[in-house]
């Protein structure tokens, strides 16, 4: 059995990517299973999705804690201790990372022993689809890595996207982008990671309710988290065009636009999530969007 885990941010398409891979494998006659993990989901928050592929009926369910292949759809997740995308990766495993950087540099920077493949699929999606929706592309990358066929991938993308959209043009562009990623990557022989970390069964100790009730007694128990690294685009102001109408300040859902001494708005880039609502709402078209690449 091959176990693939996808990491992305809400809205990037990790769930559909896991489905594209699952369906492609299913179409080739494998047993397949796919599954997203989301709770209180929201756009931009880290999410994970899983695909299992096997020649025999699959007797495993739930999260994959020791994957053979990991697909990281957003490089910034590598720095996020809660998303922890590389957890459970063995030396024989393989990580695909969506980044502008080269595999060797990524291996060094994040101290990864396993095999690494990289490709800037955000750029490919912007070029072909015009927006950073990565589901078909990450699904295409994963399909190549686990050695599925191009024809299965094509059919899988068609099926999965037909569930979401009736726009034929959009489906065709997604197929094109998906196949592009498929062809840009080598297929790799992956050894299934069969090791299982063991932890002994223990006897639960009793603890009084001042400890064992589900309450939190400490104030400010969540570490301060900056959300600026979620951005794919960054809003940039043109003060020549800005009329100081303050619409952008009002509309920013994260309250991160402030006003400088001359009365012009500017964004707190440490927290701006790059949703571009400000740019859409600006009546003077004074805010433009710039692609953000993750520079070290």
């Amino acid at each position, binding site marked *: 059995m091959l176990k693939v885990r996808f990491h992305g941010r809400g809205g990037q398409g990790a769930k559909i990517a896991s*489905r594209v891979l*699952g*369906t492609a494998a*299913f179409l080739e006659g494998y*047993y*397949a*299973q*796919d*599954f*997203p*993990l989301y*709770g209180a989901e929201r756009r931009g928050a880290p999410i994970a999705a899983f695909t299992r592929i096997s020649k025999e009926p*699959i*007797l*495993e*369910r*739930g*999260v994959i*804690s020791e994957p053979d292949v990991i697909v990281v759809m957003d490089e910034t997740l590598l720095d996020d201790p809660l998303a922890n995308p590389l957890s459970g990766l063995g030396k024989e495993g393989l990580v695909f990372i969506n980044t502008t950087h080269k595999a060797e540099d990524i291996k060094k920077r994040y101290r990864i022993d396993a095999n690494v493949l990289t490709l800037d699929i955000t750029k490919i999606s912007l070029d072909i689809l015009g927006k950073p929706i990565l589901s078909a592309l990450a699904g295409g990358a994963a399909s190549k890595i686990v050695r599925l066929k191009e024809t299965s991938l094509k059919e899988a993308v068609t099926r999965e996207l037909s569930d979401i959209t009736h726009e034929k043009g959009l489906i065709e562009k997604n197929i094109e982008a998906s196949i592009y990623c498929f062809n840009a990557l080598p297929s790799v022989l992956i050894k299934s990671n069969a090791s*299982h*970390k*063991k*932890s*002994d*069964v*223990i*006897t*639960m100790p009793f603890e009084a309710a*001042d*400890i064992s009730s*589900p*309450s*939190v*007694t*400490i104030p400010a*128990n969540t570490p301060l988290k900056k959300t600026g690294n979620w951005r794919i685009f960054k809003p940039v102001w043109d003060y020549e065009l800005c009329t100081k109408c303050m619409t952008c300040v009002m509309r920013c859902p994260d309250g991160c636009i402030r006003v400088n001494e001359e009365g012009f708005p500017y964004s707190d880039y440490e927290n701006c999530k790059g949703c571009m609502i400000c740019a859409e709402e600006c009546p003077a078209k004074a805010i433009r969007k710039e692609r953000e690449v993750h520079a070290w």
Partner: protein
Amino acid sequence: MLGKMTKQMLTGNASIAWGVRLSDVDYIPAYPVTPQTEIIESLSKWIREGQMDAGFVTMDSEHSMITAAGAASATGVRVFTATSSQGLMYGFEMLYTVSGWRVPFVMANVSRGLSSPITLEPDHNDILAARDTGFLQIHCETCQEALDSILIAYRLAEDKSVLLPAIVNMDGFYLSFTREPVEIPNKEIVREFLPPYKPTHAFFRASQPMAQGVAVLGGHIYSYFKYQMHMANNNALSIYKEVSEEFKETFGRGYGTVEGYMLDDAEYVLIMSNSFSAMGKAAVKRAREKGLRIGLLRLRLLRPFPEEDIREALKGRKASAVIDQNISVGKGGILYSEIAGVLYNEKQRPLLLSFIGGLGGKNISDAEFDFIFDAMMNAYSTGNVPQPALLYTEAELEEMERLKRVAGKG
């Protein structure tokens, strides 16, 4: 006569929705709750797009929803509804009420642990709280089984010697949001298997008024009606066997009241239910590779409780262990007690061990399964049965310690 069938990747929720679509349901009262909502979303979409011809009403709560389901069913139409966890609890009063009306609608429950603390992941305290209500209960391991069980549930519930509502249960997340290949039966063949519902006991119309669920004063009257329900529920045991036999002939997939896995020559038996049984099967398979004679018994029909089939399956075994994915606080595993009751009068009965596992969706690791297998073999060789225990690992307790520190309790 397998007919033309198509297989595709479906989630558990989509599988349930397909089962309902194929069952020619007339009316669906609905109220959303995670992780069930996808079921009613799919159904409402199909109704809107004209692929299904049914009334769909969103209600103000599960209490109203279950009342509406019962009332609609009492007019003689086929009804479906779905809920989960807190939602089931909120409608709880009406479960007893509508089953007393003897109305055979089908409800899906997508299991999710009960608050507090609040969670989204599965265990069976929600569905097992409903075990005494009069509803029939079918518990599923796979998405295919969830779809098929909707068809079987209608046949069973609508049978003249049963006429009680039924719940089809599946685990949240592990089935509800998990896709796997599912065969969608052909609609014409489903129609032959499940003909239209034509009741002769509850069919009120505007022109044909009738009183339902009347008030009774006097225990002998109340007892009569209650015990009739109990007998009707028990009738479903033999009817179930006929229906599932016919289902197998028609669709090629058979489902017993219980399922045995590597059971024939097993000396030790693991007893589980629902989707985690798959992990139990994997553990049994590994144990077999090591030469241990272990098998698994999966409970599928929970109400009526298939006592005879369970006794039969456990006959001659050395020891058996129940993993309860539920906890009756202050008592322990619910199914353990039920199985113990089944075995008590047997002269030669296996030792019976009790474990609580998978609460709130907690993973059951290989090490935990091995722990159970060792405990069964050890109990048999020493004659000492260990105290009921929780499956919990050292690593999990360490993680708990960390969280306690975060919460200011360490």
